């Protein structure tokens, strides 16, 4: 047994090096994996909510997205605690002058690629509060906006419709 063990130590292993992959199969796999990953992972977005001046009405309905009826996470959408972890900024409110810099810095802290969704009638153009000395205006007056979801506040269903459209785009 000792001789056998010694031989196996001194001789080169019998195992052959693996062949290099078939280029055609590789391309084919890559294609299907891309589809699978797009289907499974590409439908996942992390959302950072930013209240830039809202009355808190929009926040209440955004909260509702997490309840058992709407269950946002089953769609691959989840709220995260930091803009650094986010793909999407969900911004509410007319942007107040006192929140402008905080919104700009939150946007700058979000890695590319990123989307901004402006939620509520105030976020569109300042709504009822436009023209006030304390208000800049809608969200697009401060950061580029990809999608507006209307409503005062938008219902959870309206929010879901908007966010699902973002996933499918």
């Amino acid at each position: 047994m000792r001789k056998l063990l010694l031989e196996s130590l001194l001789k080169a292993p019998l195992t052959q090096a693996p062949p290099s992959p078939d280029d055609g199969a590789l391309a084919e796999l890559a294609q299907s994996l891309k589809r699978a990953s797009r289907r499974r992972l590409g439908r996942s977005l992390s959302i950072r909510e930013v209240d830039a001046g809202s009355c808190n009405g929009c926040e209440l309905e955004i909260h509702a997205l997490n309840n058992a009826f709407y269950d946002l996470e089953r769609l691959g959408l989840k709220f995260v605690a930091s803009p650094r972890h986010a793909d999407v900024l969900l911004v509410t409110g007319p942007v107040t002058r006192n929140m402008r810099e905080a919104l700009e810095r939150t946007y700058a802290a979000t890695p590319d690629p990123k989307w901004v969704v402006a939620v509520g009638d105030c976020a569109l153009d300042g709504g009822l509060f436009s023209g006030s000395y304390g208000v800049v205006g809608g969200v697009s007056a401060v950061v580029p906006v990809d999608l507006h979801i209307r409503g005062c506040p938008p219902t959870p269903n309206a929010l879901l419709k908007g966010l699902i459209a973002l996933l499918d785009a």
Partner: protein
Amino acid sequence: MTFLSALASKGSRVGAQRPWPRVVVDHPTWLQGVVGLAAGEATLLGLWSDGEAVHMALHGPEAPEVLVVSVPCPARRFPSVAISHPPALRLERTICDLYGLEPEDSPDRRPWLDHGRWGMRHPLGVREPAPAQGETYAFHAAVGPPLHQIPVGPVHAGIIEPGHFRFSCNGEAVVRLEERLGYVHKGIDGLMRGASLDRAAKLAGRTSGDSTVAYAIAFARAVEAALGLDTPPRALFLRALMAELERLANHFGDIGAICNDASFSLIHAHCGILREHVLRVADVGFGHRLMMDCVVPGGTAVDLASAGAQALPTLMRTIRRRFPELVELYDSTASLQNRTITTGTLKQQLARQYGAGGFIGRGSGRAFDARKMPGYPPYGDLRFEMMVRQNGDVDARVWVRIGEVAQSLALIEQILDRLPPGPIRVDPDPPAPGQTSEGLALIEGFRGDVLAWVRIADNGTVAHCHLRDPSWFQWPLLEAAIEGNIVADFPLCNKSFNCSYSGHDL
């Protein structure tokens, strides 16, 4: 003679204000009012300005119960209230920020809502241009070798409103918390000036979205008092129905969120379901989940839809079946109560001094509910108990909410039983030409008492309106309640207070 009636006799009565008197006083009488406040003879309900005078609303235990004293400010100054009565401090700083009226001898001259970003000073007074660069804020220092600071916000980790918290800590223990608010200042007092009643009612309903019904009722009642309108009985009952639905929805949200901040997500999930049930019935009954713009001056904009009337008893049954199980779970989970009992204790004396409303005051032994006193219809015809706890901790504030859920259910059942028939709205007439009229209202929202004061011009528009959120007298108490607690318990304490940012920042 009570303190308030003695004070009232020393000033000249302004005829236009209803239902409670307003008197214009000189500086010595104003200071007597301040001394009385500091001695606990009355509670401060509000302190605001219209640019010409500073108005102070006081509440006392006996008639006239509510009194507004006004001191004219021709020299752009007024005697500080906060120097003797600290609850007035942030209100005073706000008057200075917005109108440029200086509180003489104020103990704190830092701006409050003005962050140096409006491009002007005193936007509602004599405007002075100022570069909108943002100003460094001089936080109160807490220094010493073991202390470190933790700055939090204005953008927070959750789906909540913005504000800044500056913690000074010794290891895990919070030595001092200082709040800096004003981030969501939209200029509501300014937008109200010259607004039509319709637009003003919409603005009032968006002062703090979670209390949209309470604000709309407060504004409507102030207008109705000013114009001497008789609100139809059916509208009064419908308003109370909406107000109790709003209270239910918010209390469910809060109870769940407090448990969630103690990492007990099961109750949170179930409370979220109950909240959603309430909002859906509100939608079916009144056409809007939060019932925004449903209450208007003169009555209500909508009647209860028949589908809503049918859905309400089912909702009551669902809550009565499901909620007691959650209460039982809260009451029997020692690990959860370990987090809430003796955490974030608010002393009774502070709750009294600040006139803290809602579950914060009632959780610390302050038996005050604007539905009971001064009271407003239809609550005088309805039976309900005031929930009061003595301990002042997170647990006490949870139990006050739990008790109020049961009371709101009982109220809704009584309202549905007695809902009178008839019209839901009368149209307001403007005051006589050349006359202004003023009205005041105090309404119990889910968070506490909302004060609304309105002056209506002779063309029927709003000349001035001031809305005082209960949070003005609650936010400062959070700074006191957190002291000595660990940083990790701050979210729990904060959620148990659940103060409004938007309602405070205006």
